[in-house]
Each structure stands twice: as C-alpha cells, then as structure tokens.
C-alpha cells in the first residue's frame, strides 16, 4: 500500500512556541500512526533545530516565522525547516568531543550533534535568503 501524507506547522521565533511543537507531534503520532519513541526523537531534533534559530538566527526583535514541513512517503519521514534568519549551516559545525570528562566538557554545543545522531540524514541549503534544514528518518514500526 502506498501512503503519502503531508502536514505543516508554523511557529513564531518565540521559545513558548515549543509547547506547540509538542502538541503538534502528538497529533501527528495519532494521524500518521507513528511509534512513541520516534515522536520523542522528532521532538528532540525539532527542539534543538528550532531553538538554535530562535536564539541565534536574528538580530532584530521582530516576529519571524519558522515553517516546518512534514512529509511521509511510505516509511520515509522528511521534515523540512525553513527560516529567514542569518545564513547558518548547522551541519558544518564540528562534533563535540563526547569522550571528555565532566570538568573538561564545554557547557552546550550538543544540540546539532543530537540531531545528527537521531536522524538518518541531515541536509542544509541556503536559497533565496532562507535557510532550509532537511531531516530524514526511516520509520521502524
């Protein structure tokens, strides 16, 4: 059976919007019949990506829109995050050294690394003054 689903979520660049990500994913879990563990991981990947944009993407105090596009084609899930913040390629960031002891471990710098570990594929593109971060994940039931 061929399945194709599509859904969108629009967020303002405000941290409170994260509760909407949570609620949206709960809906998605039911509608697309996705396993709980996957939803937890998607929530984490999205939180890390979106908070990066919110905290570092803008210099002004204006309200900006972050558009998140969800597609499911059979067992392949694709999430595309689009924002109009500064050009920033998170995939180019070097991975943290996870073997360091607590005293030597820097505080932070873990978010992007978590996304890369959780998702199967992470791609960045800059088009028409917008950042596009595309995350792929194969659904295992």
């Amino acid at each position, binding site marked *: 059976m061929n399945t194709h689903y599509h859904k969108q979520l629009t967020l303002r660049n405000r941290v*409170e919007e994260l509760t909407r990500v949570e609620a949206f994913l709960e809906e998605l879990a039911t509608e697309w019949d996705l396993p709980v563990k996957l939803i937890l991981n998607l929530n984490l990947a999205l939180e890390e990506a979106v908070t990066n944009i919110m905290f570092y993407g803008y210099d002004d105090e204006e309200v900006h829109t972050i558009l998140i596009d969800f597609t499911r084609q059979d067992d392949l899930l694709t999430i595309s995050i689009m924002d109009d913040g500064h050009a920033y390629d998170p995939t180019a960031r070097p991975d943290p050294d996870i073997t360091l002891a607590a005293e030597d471990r820097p505080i932070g710098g*873990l*978010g992007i690394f*978590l996304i890369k570990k959780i998702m199967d594929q992470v791609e960045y593109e800059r088009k028409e003054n917008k950042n596009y971060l595309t995350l792929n994940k194969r659904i295992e039931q």
Partner: protein
Amino acid sequence: MKLEITTSGEFKMVKVNGRIDTTRAVEFESAVVSLIDQGCKNLIINCFDLNYISSSGLRVFLVLQKRLSGQQGIFRLCCLQPEIQEIFDISGFSTIFQIFPTEEAALAGEK
C-alpha cells in the same frame, strides 16, 4: 515538570516528573541550584518519571555535576527510562555521570 524533594540520610533526593526542555530547564536549574546554595552537597536525581530531555536539560545536569564535584560533593542519577538513557549514551553523558538502576543502589553508591 514537577519536582519532589526529599531527604535520605546524607542525600537530597530530587524526583523529576515530566519534561526538561528549553522552556523548563531554567526552572529546574534554579530549584536544584538553590538546594546546593542552601548547603546540600550530596544529590541524587531520580529520573523515573522524566519522560523527555533536550540539550538544555543535559546542560543543567552538567552544571550540577561541575558544581558538586567542585566542592567534593556527590552527584548521582537513578532510574533512567530507556529512551532517556539512550540520549545520555549518544551525548557521552553516560560515562560522565554516575547512573544507578534504583534509588537504593544510588544511595549505596553500588551499581
């Protein structure tokens, strides 16, 4: 997120219920740091009812670890759900922290 704080011998035990994400990490940090400010040196965080953690939450755990080891205190975690344990494993945090399967084991310091 809800926190339940109890005392067990030389330890303060903090039971976290819910999520430690970007919106809740500050509240979690200030609650636990205030325990340390009040003189608590030995701390156990019971994660049985912790069902979500992001890098903001992990950051707080690292802050607490640095803070307590800086004053020769003890910082232990217990009862992590498999999904949470996995995030700790991915981040390399499983080797940084002393993680125990049960409260009793965490109190005794025996894995």
